[in-house]
């Protein structure tokens, strides 16, 4: 039987980032004297990072395909501005406006995907151009001012919480019982899925981790999920954004792991020529990867607009850098073919906790940037170092 330490060594790539995330959470929890893990702060952290994660899902696919997208911050601002024009200035029903905006995001993605996939202009250049184009167009349509406020229904996209069906008090304060129940449901689902995977692996004669490791792992995951829900419940419960986010993460994780499209994107990023000669229509696949990125950037743009309650010309500035950093910190390879959705999510939380923790400590924006830069380099170095050692 394998010892825990060898298990750890073999899976360092998978668990390394998670451990680092926990480590900085503990660090900031101590340094901020417990503010980091306060229910209201945790809720804020989720709200602040939801759009990074949403764009991270699209970006991960773009990076796995072997490219990069620098324009997403500008696309988010542009789509937010359009939402403002439609909803605030023209009283378009916000449900309809959301659909239109997603469509516009997809169209922008198609525009960029066309240049990258069919005209073969490097994505770095196309999306650098897109970054300028859509930032400029945002300024044009909002004429340099902020558009707002949005109707309450649209605001709920980012500031609302799910309703509670119970009236329970905890330590004299209202306690969001529905949140706990949903947490339990999610925990049970995760354990079930992991158990099924393990069963399947055994059935096909693969070496599986020892049972006690399986138990420890699932206990840790359950504890994390329940702890998180408990904190949420003590504030206002699960935010609406999380209701959007969780299925999105699950669906994208499923697409990358279990579907033909996902497999083909990895193949394309791993070796475009070989994938093409195996019958993968690589230009079309790359095109749709960018369409997807555009639509997700649009969704993120609307969440940002809803959160700020206005469409501003400089919304989403610098988002692309946080999103790209999240993917690389989460173990994606800049040369394509490698990266996971869960890694990108962990990377996004890592960046989020750093932003939040340093702000709580009163670290200035100047030092925050410098520190984030070093951390990104360190994380990728750690990855490269491990790869060289094992290879």
């Amino acid at each position, binding site marked *: 039987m394998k010892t825990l330490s060898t298990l750890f060594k073999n899976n360092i790539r998978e668990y390394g980032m998670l451990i680092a995330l926990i480590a900085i959470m503990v660090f900031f929890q101590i340094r901020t004297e417990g503010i980091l893990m306060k229910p209201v702060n945790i809720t804020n952290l989720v709200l602040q990072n939801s759009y990074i994660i949403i764009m991270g899902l699209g970006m991960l696919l773009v990076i796995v395909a072997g490219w990069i997208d620098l324009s997403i911050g500008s696309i988010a601002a542009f789509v937010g501005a359009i939402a403002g024009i439609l909803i605030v200035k023209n009283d378009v029903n916000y449900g309809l406006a959301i659909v239109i905006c997603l469509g516009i995001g997809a169209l922008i993605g198609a525009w960029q995907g066309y240049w990258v996939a069919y005209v073969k202009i490097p994505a770095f250049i196309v999306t650098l151009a897109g970054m300028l184009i859509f930032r400029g167009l945002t300024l044009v349509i909002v004429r340099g001012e902020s558009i707002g406020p949005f109707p309450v229904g649209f605001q709920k996209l980012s500031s609302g919480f799910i309703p509670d069906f119970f009236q329970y008090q905890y330590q004299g304060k209202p306690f969001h019982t529905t949140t706990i129940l949903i947490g339990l449901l999610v925990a049970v689902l995760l354990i079930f899925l992991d158990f099924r995977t393990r069963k*399947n692996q055994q*059935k*096909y004669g*693969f070496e599986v981790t020892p049972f006690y490791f399986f138990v420890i792992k699932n206990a840790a995951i359950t504890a994390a999920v329940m702890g998180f829900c408990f904190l949420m419940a003590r504030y206002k419960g699960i935010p609406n954004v999380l209701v959007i986010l969780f299925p999105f993460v699950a669906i994208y994780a499923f697409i990358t792991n*279990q*579907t*033909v*499209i996902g*497999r*083909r994107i*990895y*193949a394309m990023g*791993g*070796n475009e*020529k*070989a*994938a*093409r*000669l*195996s*019958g*993968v*229509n690589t230009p079309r696949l790359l095109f749709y990867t960018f369409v997807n990125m555009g639509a997700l950037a649009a969704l993120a743009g609307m969440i940002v607009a809803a959160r700020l309650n206005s469409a501003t010309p400089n919304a989403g500035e610098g988002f692309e850098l946080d999103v790209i950093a999240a993917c690389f910190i989460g173990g994606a390879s800049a040369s394509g*073919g*490698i990266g996971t959705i869960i890694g990108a999510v962990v990377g996004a939380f890592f960046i989020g906790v750093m932003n939040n923790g340093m702000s709580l400590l009163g670290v200035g924006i100047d030092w925050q940037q410098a520190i984030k830069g070093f951390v990104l380099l360190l994380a990728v170095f750690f990855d490269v170092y491990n790869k060289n050692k094992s290879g």
Partner: protein
Amino acid sequence: MPDVILEMRNITKTFPGVKALDNVSFSVSPGEIHALVGENGAGKSTLMKVLSGVYPYGSYDGEIYFQGKECRFQDINQSEEVGLVIIHQELALIPFLSITENLFLGNEQAKYGVIHWNESISKTKELLERVGLHESPNTLITNMGVGKQQLVEIAKALAKRVKLLILDEPTASLNETDSEKLLQLLLQFKAQGIASILISHKLSEVSKVADSITILRDGATIETLDCQKDTITEARIIRGMVGRDLTHRFPPRDSKISETIFEVRDWNAYHPLHADRKVSNNVNIHVRKGEVVGIAGLMGAGRTELAMSIFGRAYGTRISGTAYKNGQAVDISTIDKAIANGIAYATEDRKVYGLILIEEIKDNITLANLDAVSDVGIINEPKELTVTREYRDKLNIKCSSILQLAVNLSGGNQQKVVLSKWLFANPDILILDEPTRGIDVGAKYEIYSIINRLASEGKGIIMISSELPEILGVCDRIYVMREGKIVGEVPAKDASQEIIMKYIMTQQEVVEQ
């Protein structure tokens, strides 16, 4: 004056699993043109790489003496310093720099890092004069034809005060007049006392200019012919180049050939960059059920280009011609359509075009036919594992697990993964491009057995190979290609290496039934 300028003694060079040079001795007299001939893979290039220090001292066994002194080159710079300059088949010029800049690249005429342009240009003029190239020193390489570029390479060698010039297939991409000019230049150098080693497949030019000819075969020196004493015919050279024992290298084959399963007619394709260069020229080929058809030819004869242009137009532009499967015209204009019509192409370069090296064996095997292991776009993992294991066992892929990354497999096993991928796509016609390149003898035998099995299942197989014994040992019928054309077609039972070599080498077309 010593009677030899260069002497290589008992050179042995091994690569993992292959002995590329086995105790080769080779010497060149001062001021002679010494031709080095042999089949692809005979070891000519390896020998020259040992000589020029590409393979540093210590990575081979044996001794090299140049002008009576023992040489232990660590890299190319050291060999160039003593006057040994090699010009490779693929020219090493920088296209967007001028002739002058190229000539003195790495050897800039400079003082304190500042280039002395006047001196550089006047020296360039002098050198261009010596090679008979009338071009301005400021001309960019990209604006010159291949023939002139070749001359610039030679001028570059002269700039390094060359004493022994090594030319690897210098005329392979030149036309008649440029080739003739180049050969005259070599004769002129000879008069000036510069010796040359000429590696060439064009036996006509070898017999025209060479003073002596050394023949390599399977990494060993077969013989050195003295052209001054005897008259050497091309047939004599060919006999030396081929002619080895073929028994037991190929599994026995019992062909059951029936009707034509695939045919291309009037197939033309042009080079993707040089729009006026025809890479496939009016090609007509067919393959029958249960038949293994070989395509022989030299590297650069257009075999891979032909195969890839047929396989979903993966190569070339302005492709024209018709493909027929079972007598019906089929649309194979994209790779998906070609695969859907039962055509598979296993590439010659498995690392660049065949495999996703950073992915698992399993993912590589199912890539070309993912639909067969998935339901409505969702991969059925148990099914995928079962299928992949089946192929691992059937093709005897040696690996620790099917989850092992392709990059960690040996060449032979990588090739089996590529074959598995295409077998899983269940094609009726398989085009195998150099299926045994760079793999050891045992794995070769296994690949041949797989080919036999596929043929006996009624598939049509087209095999491109540069190894004549392999073509003769595996195929039922053999096409010979040269310069994008089919220049010969021979049933295997009537073929011999000499006959095929004659088609490959002979300049005029011979069509024999």
